């Protein structure tokens, strides 16, 4: 008998008749895990020991999440086939990313195989899965879990004593009557905290078998419900945009990185730790996999979660940043750690699968604990001229926050790339882009406000300002050129310009420019040494009566060791 029970059907009845020893051993492991996560192993004694508020909260949340599992546990598998067939007949023409758009008949090459031929092993199609390794599709559970996420965030704020967490139906109604406003919270809260929260909503969709675009709608749902019902403060327009768009970018990135970490062919402790590691970056998918038993089942990864190429680097060094409008001579060195990831073929390829190629840059140190994050994902790609030209539509999440300046943005770009071999060993790649910035933020001190008064608004407490950065839409453009030798980049140039028309904050037009040149030299194997020269410039045209202008610029030099990962 099939061991389809892993997805939550009664294990004893479903799997015991199997004569296969391997399957029996696997069933035993799965049974233990399922009992554990159902709470059988915890026992009453352990529950009695729970005394702290944190653990009580954890139990409440766990109970709620387990409650969401019950429809799956009780779902009879065979009846799903008719509905599944109807679903599959609606397969879209465009190859949109996601589990939901992968038809089982195409699954042979997708790690799933034909459902009929796989029937004896695991009847994934009958469980509403699009492939063997894909999660069961459930929109209702995705929406429920995104609501539970809101409850978790709300309870944690309540436990921290935030007034904004004391929500009642009266505050809900008040928020609906008020409508959207701009909020006054800290820069990191709005530009990192909210996108991370949005990532949780988005991955709740992905963890329940929804496609990229369907999960984007779940992110918007979770964000809107949080703004109206999760806090007593007025619903914030900038939070809604940052949570939704930032959540999509971070969510798909984390979801795919989670699949990179998972080793679905392994068993035993190695498998357990790979699932725990993946759960750390994508908690919702990890939780659902433990809940359904997928975390212990040996299977192929979903095909679209396996990138054709993967590269990256880690750099450790020091940077020197000049003070405002000053030279770099007096700058003090600041240590930094930078990590870059290139997922998929970012420079070439026909693609209609969002984020099948993306680039991530994270920097710690160098002016603040977490000073830079950039996620740029390809939404669609179209090659021309035998792959020499590449047109792409990109989504970008950008965050920079150091002791000199702070910027952040959510944008969509159209990009044109050119790949040109210069010799047998040398190559050149140039990418130019331009697009719309839906919402951008830049630090800007209101006229007449002392600098020391900035940044006083904390977390999700009622913030009273002043909020020393501006919000607004705008545009952006840029170009990057990289020279490589034997497929290894040894020098590169980067330029980006960004315009921000301030709608909230100081009424002004901000024009930001950033230029950088990199030089990388190999030392031994994957180890290399590099240096970078960077220049950041902000030109602000105030809309005051005097039409005053101000200009800020910050030079920067970096020196570092780099370790290439391939």
């Amino acid at each position, binding site marked *: 008998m099939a061991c389809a029970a892993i997805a939550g059907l009664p294990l004893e009845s479903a799997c015991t008749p199997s004569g296969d020893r391997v399957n029996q051993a696997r069933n035993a492991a799965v049974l233990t895990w399922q009992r554990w996560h159902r709470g059988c192993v915890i026992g009453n004694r352990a529950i009695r020991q729970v005394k702290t508020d944190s653990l009580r909260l954890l139990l409440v949340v766990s109970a709620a999440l387990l409650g969401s599992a019950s429809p799956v546990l009780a779902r009879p598998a065979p009846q799903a086939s008719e509905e599944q067939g*109807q*679903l599959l007949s*609606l397969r*879209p*023409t*465009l190859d*949109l990313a996601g589990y939901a*758009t992968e038809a089982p008949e195409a699954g042979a090459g997708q790690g799933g195989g034909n459902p009929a031929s796989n029937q004896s092993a695991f009847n994934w199609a009958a469980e509403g899965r699009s492939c063997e390794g894909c999660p069961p599709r459930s*929109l209702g559970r995705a929406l429920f879990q995104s609501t539970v996420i809101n409850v978790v965030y709300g309870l944690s704020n309540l436990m921290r004593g935030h007034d904004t967490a004391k929500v009642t139906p009266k505050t809900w109604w008040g928020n609906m009557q*008020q*409508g*959207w*406003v*701009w909020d*006054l919270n800290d820069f990191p809260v709005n530009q990192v905290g909210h996108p991370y929260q949005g990532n949780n909503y988005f991955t709740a969709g992905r963890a329940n078998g929804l496609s990229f*675009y*369907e999960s*984007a*709608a779940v992110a*918007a*749902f979770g964000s*809107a419900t949080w703004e109206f019902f999760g806090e007593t403060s007025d619903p914030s*327009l900038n939070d*809604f*945009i940052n949570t*939704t768009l930032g959540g999509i970018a971070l969510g798909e990135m984390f979801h795919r990185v989670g699949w990179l970490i998972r080793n679905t062919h392994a068993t035993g402790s190695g498998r357990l730790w790979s699932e725990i590691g993946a759960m750390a970056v994508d908690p919702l998918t990890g939780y659902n996999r433990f809940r359904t038993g997928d975390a212990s089942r040996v299977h192929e990864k979903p095909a679209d979660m396996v990138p054709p190429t993967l590269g990256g680097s880690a750099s450790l060094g020091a940077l020197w940043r000049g003070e405002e409008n000053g030279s770099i001579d007096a700058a003090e060195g600041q240590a930094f750690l930078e990590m870059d990831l290139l997922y998929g073929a970012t420079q070439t390829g026909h693609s209609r699968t969002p984020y099948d190629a993306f680039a991530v840059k994270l920097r710690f140190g160098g002016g603040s604990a977490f000073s830079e994050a950039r996620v740029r994902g390809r939404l669609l790609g179209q090659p021309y001229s035998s792959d020499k030209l590449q047109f792409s539509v990109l989504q970008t999440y950008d965050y920079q926050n150091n002791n000199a300046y702070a910027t952040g943005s959510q944008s969509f770009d159209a990009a044109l790339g050119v790949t040109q071999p210069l010799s047998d060993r040398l190559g050149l790649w140039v990418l130019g882009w331009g697009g719309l910035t*839906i*919402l951008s933020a830049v630090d800007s001190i209101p006229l007449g406000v002392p600098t020391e008064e900035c940044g006083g608004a904390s977390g999700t407490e009622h913030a009273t300002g002043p909020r020393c950065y501006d919000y*607004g*839409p705008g545009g952006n453009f840029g170009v990057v050129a990289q020279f490589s030798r034997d497929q290894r980049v040894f020098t590169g140039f980067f330029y980006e310009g960004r315009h921000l028309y*301030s*709608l*909230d*904050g100081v*009424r002004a037009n901000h024009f930001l420019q950033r230029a950088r040149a990199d030089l990388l030299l190999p030392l031994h194997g994957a180890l290399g040494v590099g240096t970078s020269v960077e220049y950041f410039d902000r030109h602000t045209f105030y*809309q005051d009566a005097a039409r005053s202008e101000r200009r800020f610029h910050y030079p920067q030099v970096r020196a570092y060791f780099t370790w290439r990962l391939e």
Partner: protein
Amino acid sequence: MTWRIRIVVAGIAAFITLAPAAAVAQPSPANAEESRLWLVAGGAFAALRGDCQTCEEDYPYRKGGGVLVNGGYRVNARMDVGGEVFWIPVDTTEGRIRTTHWDAVAQFRPWASKGFFLKGGAGMAYVRNWVDVLGQQSVNSKALSVVVGTGWEFRTTRRIGLQIFGSQHVGALGDLQTADAEIPDVVGNFWSVGAGVVIR
């Protein structure tokens, strides 16, 4: 009752009359033979309210009718993308506030075989004679526009249908210079409920 309100009422009355039959005859929106283009035109009751970040005054809600047109391309059975124009003129004692939202929108149907949809988008809004309570001077402004909404689509025939919807548009204007003072961080919220004819 103004002529716009009458048009909206007539449209909704027609919708209520036709909707039961439409619900019975509702085909799948994902019919392979239908065009990928879609168009919706209709009317709505709307309420609008302007406010600002530091304003202590409790600004009034104003009510009126609105016209909505949106259209675009059906990406797949669950997703439409396109553009939307939402025009809301509101009469006040001092004049008329006219707001036009131009948004790029995406509509998502969680259940492909049902008419329920969620909508979201962003774009620009153009506001004329904004919030007359702030002063007598006419104020025209562009604004960042964001829209969220939901609704249900009923199909009477393969290509024609009716839609009811509720949406909230927001127009973020920034600072407004009036005759009396500069008003910081002005935001207008527009709530609307309406119905429209769908052509696919």
